């Protein structure tokens, strides 16, 4: 079966982009990730992942209009592609299947008494 391979961080970034209600670009994505995960993440890591995801075809990007607060520089808006969507769905499906396969007793918290 053909599978899409995504790293954990890549998956999170992709999910964040997918979940964004407004147009997503570097800073917003960075902020949301930090918000969701509670971790401190460098902007460069987010950028690198975004570009890599774009190269893999999960995302596309286009340059937006210039804004004054960025010294006149344009934003690069990222949107998820249908391939990206399908990738996410496949991952979710896989996970779900695996979750369902776990025998119920294993999910019971182990009690131990000393």
């Amino acid at each position, binding site marked *: 079966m053909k599978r899409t391979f995504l790293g954990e961080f890549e998956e999170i970034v992709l999910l964040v982009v997918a979940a964004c209600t407004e147009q997503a670009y570097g*800073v917003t994505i960075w902020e949301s990730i930090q918000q969701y995960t509670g971790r401190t993440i*460098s902007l*460069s890591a987010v*950028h*690198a992942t975004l570009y890599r995801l774009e190269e893999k075809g999960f995302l596309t990007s286009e*340059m937006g209009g210039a804004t004054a*607060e*960025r010294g006149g*520089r344009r934003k*690069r808006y990222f949107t998820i592609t249908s391939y990206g969507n399908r990738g996410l769905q496949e991952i979710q499906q896989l996970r779900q299947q695996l979750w369902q396969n776990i025998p119920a007793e294993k999910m019971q918290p182990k009690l131990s008494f000393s």
Partner: protein
Amino acid sequence: MEEPKKNPSPPKWIDYLLGVVIAPHFLEDVIGDLHEVFLILAKKSGHQKAKWLYLFAAVKYIRPYFIKRKPAQYSPTYLFSPEMIKNYFKISLRTLAKNKAYSFINITGLAMGMAVAMLIGLWIYDELSFDRNFQNYGRIAQIMQHQTFNGQIGTQNSVPFPLGPELRRNYGADFKYVVMSSWTNPHIVTVGDKKLSKKGTFIEPEATEMLSLKMLSGTRSGLKDPYSIMLSESVAKAYFGDADPLEKTMKIDNSLSVKVTGVYEDLPFNSSFRDMGFMLPWQLMIVANPWLKTMEDPWRPNAYLTYVQLNKHADVDKASAKIKDIKVKTINKEQLKYKPEVFLNAMSDWHLYSEFKGGVRIGGRIEFVWLFGTIGAFVLLLACINFMNLSTARSEKRAKEVGIRKAVGSVRAQLITQFFSESFLVVAFAFVLSILLVQLILPFFNEVADKKITMLWTSPVFWLSSIGFSVITAIVAGSYPALYLSAFQPVKVLKGTFRAGRFAAIPRKVLVVVQFTVSITLIIGTVVVFKQIQFAKNRPVGYSRDGLLTLYRSTPDIHKHFDAVREELKTSGAISEIAESNSPATESWSSTSGFEWQGKDPTQSVDFNFDEVSHDYGKTIGWQFLQGRDFSREFATDSVALVVNETAVKFMGLQNPVDAPLTWFKKPYKIIGVIKDLVVQSPYAPVSPLFFCLAADGGGVVNIRINPAISTASSLEKIKKVFGKYDPGSPFEYEFVDQVYARKFFDEVRIGKLTTFFSVLAVLISCLGLFGVASFIAEQRTKEIGVRKVLGATILNVWSMLSKDFVLLVCLAFLIAAPCSYYFLDGWLQKYEYRTDISWWIFALTGLGTMLITLATVSFQAIKAAMMNPIKSLRSE
């Protein structure tokens, strides 16, 4: 707290550094985002801290992903980026596939040219590597001598019998080995009941070291014992198959018993010793011919070959100068008038520089190397010209493409690269095709050229040079379209004001003229070479070759019973005459100087060819008398009678030759008849003085004229039976004189065939090019032709209009080629004493022929264009 700046900005230098580190296509949004983050941070933690955090964030961008990554999209197109190169070739392939006829003409034309160049290259390589297989290549030499005969300096490699020992005795310091040898001749070799005729040589034992024989069994010292023999691998196979031949006994010429002492790897086909099927000890020849030791003047007969290998520090020229007078010092006074001058001919000169005239080296086969090299270069040039011509002819068609590409932003360098990659692609295809062609042609080529050339698949030199040549070809062939087409101005082209103009066609015309000049020169050359061969072949030889056989007898049996053999054969009706002689009719193997006649200048050095024959020799070969009579059994005095040829009479200046007295080594002789000149040597050389005398002991050659009334096969059968009866020890082997005679033309015929082959290809390539150019011109002028037809032009009008240009060009080419080829061919013919003339009809015929070929080539396109329905051509836009 101070008033915060409205827009605090991060340090500029960090941005600058980021600009250096981060790949350009990421830069804008990365710095943009960073700035935004900076603002957020500044709001949160103050300006100063934000600056530090900004620096940390920036530093994190120093990682391979941002540094190394080349732009994946939106990249500027570099000239040689992999993408562009892929693009060049993709476009080139599409262009080639779109213009199939054009590509076909280009690729096949080039492939033919390259195949010819490659074949010639292989041939030249083979010629230049002749003899180079021998380890001691640089130090082996042959002893040769110049001598003056009949007022002319002749050069020969046969030397007297005692020369070898003399060299060893007095000049040994220079030579590591001195090796005397006989000529390589066929001998009858018998093992058990297997009896074959094989070529072999009597040679001194050091030869094995000199030639550094590769021994398969036995050692190189195998010739020390006089009754030994060393076999080449192929001869050993022929007699013993896979069995070990060592210590086996063989019989040579039915008389000498020898023991096999070694088997050596066959000497290279590509060497002067390739015929040597076996080696016999020199000592054995002396044992078999005791008279060699008791000769009255052993320095007189020049009948043997001598090779030397120089010592490490000896120099060929110096050693040559030292031995120059070796003969003068030893021989008797009487022979001094031949002015013998001995010299060394280095092995490196044997094959290519072995022709002498008047005692001076004048070259040799090296001329053919040059000739073919030039032809090869020219044929390749023709093919390149085709390519250039076709490309420029198509320039107008491609002008639009160039214009559009330029308008949408192609730089000139890209267009140049585009055209070059097209030519590289064509050349690459042609190269592959040419290798296939060469592989295919090679067997035939080898047969014609008498070579064993193989493709040098494993030789880096071959690959380097052929790929080098291909690259050069691609650059030469592609340069004109690349530079010319890429210079078009897009505005002009696209506005339609562009016209290639009159001048655009000029280089094309020049190239066509060059092409046809080369082709016509080659054709004329071929015709003259063939005419010369034909001329020499038809030279009157003074005897009749039809049904004349030569047999070499190697045992005395036939001679012993000669009268009985003759009687039996004649009564059986198989033959009309039979006679013995010393030399075959096609050769003269002996010459003499001991001739005196009345009125001879005593200081004059003379050299007369002579042959000792039996009574019926004249009748057998069918010579023709001008004066006097033939030998006759009725005159006992004929034992001191001579039959001489015309040239001899002229040479001696005799008014009444018949009955003129002569002395031969002081013994009185008289001339009884004068015959028409016989061609017994080179058919190109003038006839030398020649005489015949009767010999008591016959000679080694039996001449037979078979009876023309019965079939050759049945008379051969009868002759075989009779010979088998009287000489059961020898195989019945014979040669037809006309075949032997034809062999004298081998070299010339071979050269003739090769030049024909090359000229045909040259003409074919030229025509292919012409065909292509004509088709494009016809296409270019489609509209004009349409208009003309509408206005009433006939097919003939259109045809002549299109053909006229080409006819003029070919005429011009002819005018250039004719004097050039005359000059070269006249020089070539000067080499031959007996030569044809270059008649006017050769030029007329070649001119006419070329014209016809041109017309035929062009007409196809011209008529096609002329027949086209004008409605179609005029409606197109």
